């Protein structure tokens, strides 16, 4: 395995657009500013204000909401005196035993597993940085999370719940559970946490945070 050098002659602020490969300089961003590719307009970098504190606060909130959303019933139905309530895990269990293993697995990873992985990544990066220590060397974990990011679909799941409840509303009384509201709040908080989080922090140690030039590692 050959390791290429991060070229010593390359200016530290030189970046390539990930969508059109254009080489350009990353401008120094004031808090709240974003940099876009000069040619194709792709989002190159963001500098969310106060990134560490804000995203840490939002990630902690999201963690609490995630627990509530998974421990309490999401939705329920009342029909002729009988009442049914389901949690997310309960719904997956029923689907699995209904011979729909692949579908249950798909829902499980997209609505349950990947959102929590993203949350864990944000916390794993931010907690050590906040405490002034170097982030642990978790490169394989970060790579995994970066590749599963598009697969977290809590917001689509919430819309799916709404559609199914409308379909059932003529048939029975629909009950929105605690977890439903927790999940609605979770979507908002997760989105804000994602916005507040600066992905460049993942690859920086606290010393580098002041001089954002990444240097070659063996």
């Amino acid at each position, binding site marked *: 395995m050959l390791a290429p050098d991060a070229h010593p002659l390359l200016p530290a602020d030189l970046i390539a657009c990930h969508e059109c490969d254009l080489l350009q300089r990353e401008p120094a961003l004031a808090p709240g500013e974003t940099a876009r590719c000069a040619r194709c307009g792709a989002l190159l970098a963001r500098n969310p204000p106060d990134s560490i504190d804000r995203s840490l606060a939002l990630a902690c909130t999201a963690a609490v909401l995630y627990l509530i959303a998974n421990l309490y019933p999401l939705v329920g139905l009342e029909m002729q005196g009988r009442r049914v309530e389901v949690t997310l895990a309960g719904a997956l269990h029923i689907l699995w035993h209904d011979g729909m293993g692949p579908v249950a697995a798909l*829902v499980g990873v997209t609505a349950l597993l990947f959102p929590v992985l993203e949350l864990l990544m944000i916390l794993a990066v931010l907690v050590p940085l906040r405490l002034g220590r170097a982030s642990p060397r978790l490169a394989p974990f970060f790579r995994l999370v970066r590749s599963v990011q598009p697969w977290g679909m809590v917001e689509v799941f919430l819309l799916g719940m709404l559609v199914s409840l409308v379909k059932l509303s003529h*048939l029975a009384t629909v009950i929105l559970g605690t977890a439903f509201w927790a999940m609605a709040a979770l979507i908002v908080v997760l989105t804000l946490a994602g916005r507040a989080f600066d992905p460049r922090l993942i690859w920086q140690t606290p010393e580098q945070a002041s001089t954002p030039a990444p240097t070659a590692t063996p």
Partner: protein
Amino acid sequence: MTHRPALTARQAGLLSCHICGQLARPPATGGHALRCPRCNAPLHLRKPASLATTWALVLAAAILFVPANLLPMMTTASLLGTQHDTIMSGVIFLWQSGSWPLAAVVFFASVMVPLLKIMALVYLAASAQRRSRRQPLQRTRLYRLVEFVGRWSMLDIYVITILVALVQFQGLATIQAGPAAVAFGAVVVLTMFAAMSFDPRLIWDPIADASPSEPPHD
């Protein structure tokens, strides 16, 4: 499009990491199995076998789109008998029961988005393969749109999950997921993988090759 002299990372002999964006110069000796100096991800000039992978996944998705729409998505057993519903009959049911905004949402997410997504990916892969130089910016925007809306096709999978889990009133009404659910889930997953395996920089490579802007740097 701007007409400033544009130099891409490829023309400058640089690789940019797909995961963390780090630029690196491959060793002059060539070699394989390069790793990113910062995050240790495998380094490639372009996503490996991008077009072949995209074609294969799009083709598989297009084939599965047929059973996903023709087979029953769910089976409702109630006092009134057993009813099989496809995706389209579910949309029609929503429309007739008066919730036409939801009918439109489900129709858009479950029928239009997968269909348009497959067509858009075919167009993107075909034009990149022909090394077309027309409308690169528009095609990049199309690619972004495909990436952005893809997740919303998962809607029907979630609707089924909740319906199956909630409507388990033995003797009154039960809902079971049908074979189309597996096919439809596969279409969503395959088209998402297809969008991820397509490398948007292939749209811009023919333009860099055609412009005599700057000689390759070496």
